[in-house]
């Protein structure tokens, strides 16, 4: 019941955004909707996150689902807060009109609703439907500015992801073929039933299913070499949407892969993990190379998302409890730090009116708060302590060493050094120096507030690991290794 309400609240908020109340009213509804949505997500997830599974009608929320739901709830809340002033500036400068803003909020809320649906359902089929729906809805957000480049990005996004979704559906057909004889009735695609009966599934079918499912959803998660849509979509979308796509949308596909991985590892130990290792390493290599040569701020950040998704895939691929812990921590760290840097980039690119990094100079001098936040965000996504991505990367590397994969650990460390160098060398020159442009800090409490909220969250998880949080992560590691609470 509560899960149904959780999915319906953002949908309702989206419909309310259609009320003709003028721009002020629209913003008020969006903030109220964001608050209501966050509140229901938190209320719904309090008991699952500590281990009590919600298991009613089509819903199934264990601590893994609850973890992703809480992240999505938090990130979409912060994104909606940040969007308000960002959109108002776009509106005042004539890049968006009132109708387009209304449309933005409607699609954004529907987008949030489909994301929550993806994480909260029991059946693989419904997870697939949720992921497909997120693509369709967010295509409009990518193509928000109806200019040439945004249209191109949206076109590429929807076509490539449709292929991915089709392949994943074939994976589900194979999964069903493997399980329909083993699990009777309607439950043959339910994740918990699949895990419980994994030992009896046909291993050949499951191998084929793993290939199709991981390639299909890997396209959506932005794993190289299937990542082509990602830099375009992330760079052309409005910055709040980029943050949301990076911080939450990629997780949806990753979540599907994780659920499948759990089943597949019981049937064919080592098969799905090797596929994931391959995609993970190629993602890291591609991302490192493109981060070094990037000229466009937001494209560079998009490649950093490819890098982080690659790291998560590698953590799953190693598969020891330590590495799985690292992978889950990386999910959390990435979902907090990436919206943070995208919002900073949003402030900067909106005021400077360019995304080319060589044209942006003197941010700290003219925009004090954004400059400060960008220092923190830059260090955070580059993976410097005391920010959480550092911890995640360290955990995954130590997982590799613990599993005896020394070559992999060495390679990871080497690539991460290049990524660090690339990000720092590209971001920090923008902050120093002086500029002749007329720029000034946007005066908005909500903008500053949402950035501050993300910085505080990042610092908290980078510095502290309370007993309670560790228990949650341990519970998820147990779920990922095929156990039940």
């Amino acid at each position, binding site marked *: 019941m509560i899960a149904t309400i959780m999915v319906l609240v953002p949908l309702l908020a989206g419909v309310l955004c259609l009320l003709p109340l003028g721009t002020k009213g629209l913003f008020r509804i969006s903030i109220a909707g964001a608050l209501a949505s966050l509140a229901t997500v938190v209320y719904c997830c309090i008991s699952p996150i500590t281990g009590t599974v919600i298991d009613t009608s089509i819903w199934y929320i264990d601590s893994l689902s609850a973890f992703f739901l809480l992240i999505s709830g938090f990130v979409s809340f912060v994104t909606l807060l940040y969007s308000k002033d960002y959109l108002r500036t776009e509106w005042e400068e004539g890049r968006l009109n009132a109708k387009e803003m209304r449309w933005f909020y409607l699609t954004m809320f529907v987008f949030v609703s489909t994301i929550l649906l993806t994480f909260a359902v029991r*059946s693989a*089929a*419904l997870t*697939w*439907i949720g992921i*497909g*729906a997120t693509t*369709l809805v967010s*295509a*409009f957000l990518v*193509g928000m500015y*109806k*200019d*040439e*480049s945004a*249209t*191109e*990005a*949206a*076109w*590429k996004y*929807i*076509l490539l992801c*449709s*292929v991915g*979704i*089709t*392949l994943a*559906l*074939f994976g*589900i*057909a*194979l999964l*069903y*073929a493997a399980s*329909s004889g083993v699990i009777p009735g*309607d439950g*043959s*695609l339910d994740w918990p039933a699949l895990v419980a009966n994994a030992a009896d599934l*046909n291993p*050949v*079918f499951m191998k*084929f299913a793993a290939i199709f499912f991981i390639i299909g959803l890997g396209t959506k998660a932005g794993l190289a070499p299937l990542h082509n849509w990602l*830099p*375009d979509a992330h*760079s*052309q979308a409005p910055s709040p949407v980029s943050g949301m796509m990076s911080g939450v949308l990629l997780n949806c596909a990753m979540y599907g892969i994780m659920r499948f991985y759990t089943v597949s590892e019981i049937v064919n130990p080592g098969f799905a993990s090797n596929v994931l290792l391959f995609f993970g390493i190629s993602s890291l290599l591609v991302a490192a190379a*493109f981060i070094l*040569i*990037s*000229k466009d701020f937001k*494209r560079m950040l998009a490649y950093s998302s490819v890098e982080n998704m690659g790291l998560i895939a590698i953590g799953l691929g190693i598969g020891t409890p330590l590495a799985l812990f690292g992978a889950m921590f990386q999910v959390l760290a990435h979902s907090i730090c990436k919206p943070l840097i995208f919002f900073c980039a949003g402030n900067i690119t909106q005021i400077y009116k360019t995304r080319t990094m060589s044209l942006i100079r003197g941010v700290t001098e003219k925009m004090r708060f954004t400059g400060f936040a960008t220092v923190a965000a830059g260090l955070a996504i580059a993976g410097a302590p005391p920010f959480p991505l550092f911890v995640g990367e360290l955990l995954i590397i130590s997982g590799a060493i613990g599993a005896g994969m020394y070559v992999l650990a060495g390679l990871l460390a080497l690539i991460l050094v290049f990524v660090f160098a690339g990000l720092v060398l590209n971001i920090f020159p923008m902050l120093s120096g002086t500029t002749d442009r007329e720029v000034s800090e946007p005066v908005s409490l909500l903008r500053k507030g949402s950035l501050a909220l993300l910085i505080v969250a990042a610092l908290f998880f980078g510095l502290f690991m309370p007993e309670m949080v560790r228990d949650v992560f341990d519970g998820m590691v147990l779920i990922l290794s095929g156990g039940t609470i």
Partner: protein
Amino acid sequence: MDQILTSNLIDIFAVCMLLSSVLAMASVRMRPLIRLFILQSVFLTAFEFTVAYSQNEPEIYVMAAMTFGIKVLLIPKMLQYIMARIKVDDEMALSVGIPGSMLLSAALIIFSYFVSEPLIITLDTAERNSLVLSFSIMLIGMLMMATRRKAISEVVGLLMAENGLFLGAIALSNGMPFIVELGAFFDVLIAMIIIGIFAFRINKSFDSVDTTLLRRLKEE
């Protein structure tokens, strides 16, 4: 109908679907391409109908009806409407010529036989030959998306790959749970509507739906 006749019919329809795919790869004009897609969807409908008849599965009858409604009638109508409205020039832009496309398609078919071998031997349904064909159709659909430069031909490639998917899903397990099929059809339909909207937008901002113009976003 007896067992042998239905299983022969099933094989024939599946082979005809592959043939339509190969013919589509050899086509240089848009209108015939859309007609080939209609033809392939008709064969898919016939295939589903035969399977439904021989297995006596009411759900597959529904699926056949939906395939007919959506893929034979609705989507081709939409594509033709888009073509008429935005005055697409009928010529296709190919980045690989016809002989090359044919050779690549043949290679993909052989490749599908090669990779699906371990899967085929575990199956005992009458439709197991169709599985290999469905692999080939999916791969050729993706080849078409990769080597044809007009927006509409990319979409037809995607739709043909989806036809292959449905063929495979039925061959594997006599169809998926009904909710999945409904979701899949819904997904295809909404995707087509959105793709249509963006095709209009491409036309408006580029004065053409040649997607070579859509290759500007990249690293310098």
